């Protein structure tokens, strides 16, 4: 007899549908056209960050310096334009800094063999501290005349769809192509599944790991640009917020196991929708920031516990000291 089983993707989707249904029925102003649009716009940035995190998590890592990559290089663009540099030049500098940052992360993790959580925790602090100490004059970097036209990255509509959602869609397509259609993507899955086997097979695992973090940082920078464009400023204190936990939540709830090698873009979309609905509902219910954090924390904890049952750690390939 074949046992009837849900896979995680279906469960999460069912939870999302249920939550959506409950909110639609019991929350005034949830199921309106404007709210749906706000919801989607709000989660676009989260979704893009989720894609970056997904790439790293599939390769059995984690990148909690993403928020620093989101805040500092785009903030630098705004600051440089404010100081009179041209927009393309500022963008170029920001991209170079992001690549350098990704390379440092990747080198620390792949070559110096510092655990990824630990390395990115420290490099994130380093980059945020650098921004705070040397790059920005104010915590919120303001929009200036030189940026005009750039706000279309995050505002307005393309073919009737809000631009930020289009940007999320574009990012999804690019990442899906990278992961599914290129050899590089296959390597990431292989490394995430079993790093030693991947290495023995002849996959250049160290360069691929470095590449993962570079791509993740670039996507993070892209998300920051979209965010800055949509709010016409760059609040660099976002680094101190709990945004990174939302990103991890998206990935884990979406069904990309933290032990690596599983999941894809579809999981990120589902996770994003679920978190977006949850956050939106809590905002409408007027739960305080701390209360929201508490709820998110508990949900994340439950998700991680479930994940550890669904995707148990592989004791054969789990490293000693793999914290």
């Amino acid at each position, binding site marked *: 007899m074949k046992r009837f089983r849900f896979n995680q993707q279906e469960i999460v989707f069912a939870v999302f549908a249920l939550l959506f249904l409950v909110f639609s029925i019991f929350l005034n102003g949830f199921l309106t056209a404007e709210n749906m649009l706000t919801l989607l716009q709000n989660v676009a940035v989260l979704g893009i960050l989720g894609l970056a995190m997904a790439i790293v998590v599939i390769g059995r890592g*984690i990148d909690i310096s993403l928020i620093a990559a989101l805040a500092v290089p785009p903030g630098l663009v705004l600051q440089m334009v404010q100081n009179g540099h041209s927009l393309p030049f500022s963008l170029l500098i920001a991209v170079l800094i992001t690549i350098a940052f990704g390379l440092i992360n990747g080198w*620390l993790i792949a070559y*110096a*063999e*510092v*655990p990824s*959580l*630990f*390395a990115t*925790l*420290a*490099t*994130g*602090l*380093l980059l*945020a*501290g*650098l*921004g*705070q*100490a*040397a790059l920005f004059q104010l915590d919120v970097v303001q929009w200036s005349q030189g940026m005009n036209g750039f706000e279309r990255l995050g505002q307005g509509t393309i073919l009737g769809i809000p631009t930020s959602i289009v940007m999320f869609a574009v990012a999804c397509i690019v990442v899906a192509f990278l992961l599914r259609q290129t050899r590089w993507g296959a390597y990431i899955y292989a490394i995430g599944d079993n790093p030693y086997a991947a290495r023995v097979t002849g996959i250049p695992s160290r360069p691929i790991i470095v590449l993962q973090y570079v791509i993740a940082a670039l996507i993070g920078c892209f998300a920051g640009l979209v965010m800055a464009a949509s709010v016409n400023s760059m609040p660099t204190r976002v680094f101190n917020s*709990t945004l990174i*936990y939302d990103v*991890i939540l998206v990935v884990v709830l979406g069904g990309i196991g*933290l032990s690596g090698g599983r999941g894809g873009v579809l999981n990120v979309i589902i996770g994003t929708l679920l978190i977006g609905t949850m956050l939106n509902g809590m905002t409408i219910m007027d739960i*305080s*920031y*701390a*209360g*929201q*954090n*508490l709820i*998110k*924390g*508990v949900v*994340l*904890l439950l998700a*991680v*516990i479930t994940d*550890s049952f669904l995707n148990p*750690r592989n*004791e054969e390939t789990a*490293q*000693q*000291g*793999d*914290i």
Partner: protein
Amino acid sequence: MRDTITSLRYRYWPDHLLGEILSKRWTETAIPVILLLIVGFAFSRSIDNFLSPASLADTARQAGEIGFIALGLALVVIVGGIDLSVGSIFALTDFCALYLLDVAGWPVPAVVVATLLCGALLGAVNGILVGYLRLRAFITTLITLIIYRSAYDLLIQRYSNAIASAFPDIPSWDFIGAGSVLGIPTVALAYIVIAIFGHIFMTRLRPGWHITAIGGSRRSAYNSGIPVRRTIALCYVASGVLTSIGALFFASRLGTVGGDIGVGLEVIVLTATVLGGITLGGGKGSVAKSAVGVLIVLLITNGLTTMNARGGVNRMALAGILLVAAMVDIRWQKNRTRIISKVYVAPTYHELPPPPPTEIGQGGPFEQNDKLRDVEAIGLGRIEAPEDVILDRHDNLYAGSRHGDIMRFLAPDYQKMEVFAHIGGQPLGMAFDREDNLYVCIGGMGLYRIKPDGTVEKATDETNRSLRSVNDDSRLRLADDLDITDDGLIFFSEATVRYEMDEWPIDGLEARGNGRIISYDTKTGTTRTELRGLKFPNGICVASDGQSILFAETFGCSIKRYWFAGPKKGAVEVVMDNLPGYPDNINLASDGNYWLALVGMRSPSLDLAWKMPGFRRRMAKRVPVDEWLFPNINTGCVVKFNEQGKIVESFWDLHGENHPMITSMREHRGYLYLGGILNNRIGRYKLDNADPNFVQYDKRWGKQS
């Protein structure tokens, strides 16, 4: 001239110390301590009043508070986890203490107990999740960090005004926060007491060892029956309790519940832990390391604050230090053994004159012959590695084996073989005392005594530690051969104090005087080092005068005499030097002369290499071990020499058919019994013109029953 300079340089420059110091565990603590001194010195030069008593007392209070949290984190890191929620636990327990004291109005002792319980509870949540549910420590405590933090935020929204408006005036509470005993702040005093207990706990008590074992290898710890899950969970509980102790002192010192209390604390404590040298991933760490790390981090952050650095700079400095320290630690742990093995071998200058000839036709006492070609093989293929052979008064033959047994071949035909005693280490030299107890030198274990009924007892495995040695030389690493004087004093040689049994050829490559001669008094049970700095001392034989011993220095290629009694007591004299081979065991012959085994013959290449220490060091660094130039021990011979050090006769197996490799020999009733450490047999050779009734112990101590 050049050789003289080389010889002086290698005689007086202690090359061997580098490897020995590096292989000490305390070097890993020494580096952070040096860093601490440098940081302290730098800041005291650049900032006025940095080391003033007031400033120091303030630092001590902060250090105490953070020190408690760092102790908890150290415990968790050593067990193989991590606890990022300490900052939030700190905030919550700080709130708990102040709420109970100011709002609920509890008495101080109850507040203290309740706060500690609160910390234990918060830690227990982490402990259950990580220990029992086996979640990833990093991600789990990151989540509890948010949960606890948002709980704290919710709580202070409601109660911060009530707490801020209360001004409790309780002397005992103020004493906790601001008091001092003999000028030392209470918190520092409490920290010192708990740190000392922590040190004893980690190094001397069973639970501490369990924690280290789990951190070292979780699976092995589980397999050896340690309650892994419970121990891990308890470590998180302990971390919560220690954090709440820090929070108690903080609460009584400042009495505030600001929104940013404990924010980013985990990074400071983590930096302190890693900087102190506690390895991420577990298994290594100590209380001292944690304390040193805390002091460095506090000096740096306080120094930067005093110099008015911007908040971002402080953050960058911490993150940068954290990264560099983690990287250095990870690389060091990974490459430690490789680095040590590269620098450990420290060859020295060793010059020998050209050896006397051994080739046929060149004459001389060592001229090769084929006398041993027809030796009879005992126990062929049944015994492995009989380094030494010995016969008792009843003609039974004893030999050691590679498997850690003493084998006995029964007289008269030596066909029947039995295990006389099982020891567990490889038996080397052997000797009987007057009561027919068999004393055996066991490589890696020490000196053991086997009673005639086969029971094994340890005689000694340690001697006095020499003050100037870096390696702990109190343990016996490679006890090699022994003999017993008429007064029951046992002299035995320890070939090297720098290498283990399986690495003994490397000692030959080094050609340094690493060996020593040790005496063990059977009457008093005391062990004493007699001679040091010998080049692989090996065979030992009490000379016929009863006042001196003859001993062989294998890589010194010489036989020396040491007077342990009589008018020349304490003197050492060369009997024979520049032997053509490497001398091994020495034993008494029936005619009053001595037998000597040459385990291998010198070769011009090694003789030359011994004069070129730099060459050998490069070889040890760059070439894999199995391609090193080692002393030859494939072929050797037995010689007989007299009291004056003149060779009387030599015995060879020229074609290497029956017994080319010889490490020991015993004469017994007209036969010579031969042992060899690489052999699968014991040789028996019929001596011409020998006393057919010669029994070594009967001759020395008279016949017994």
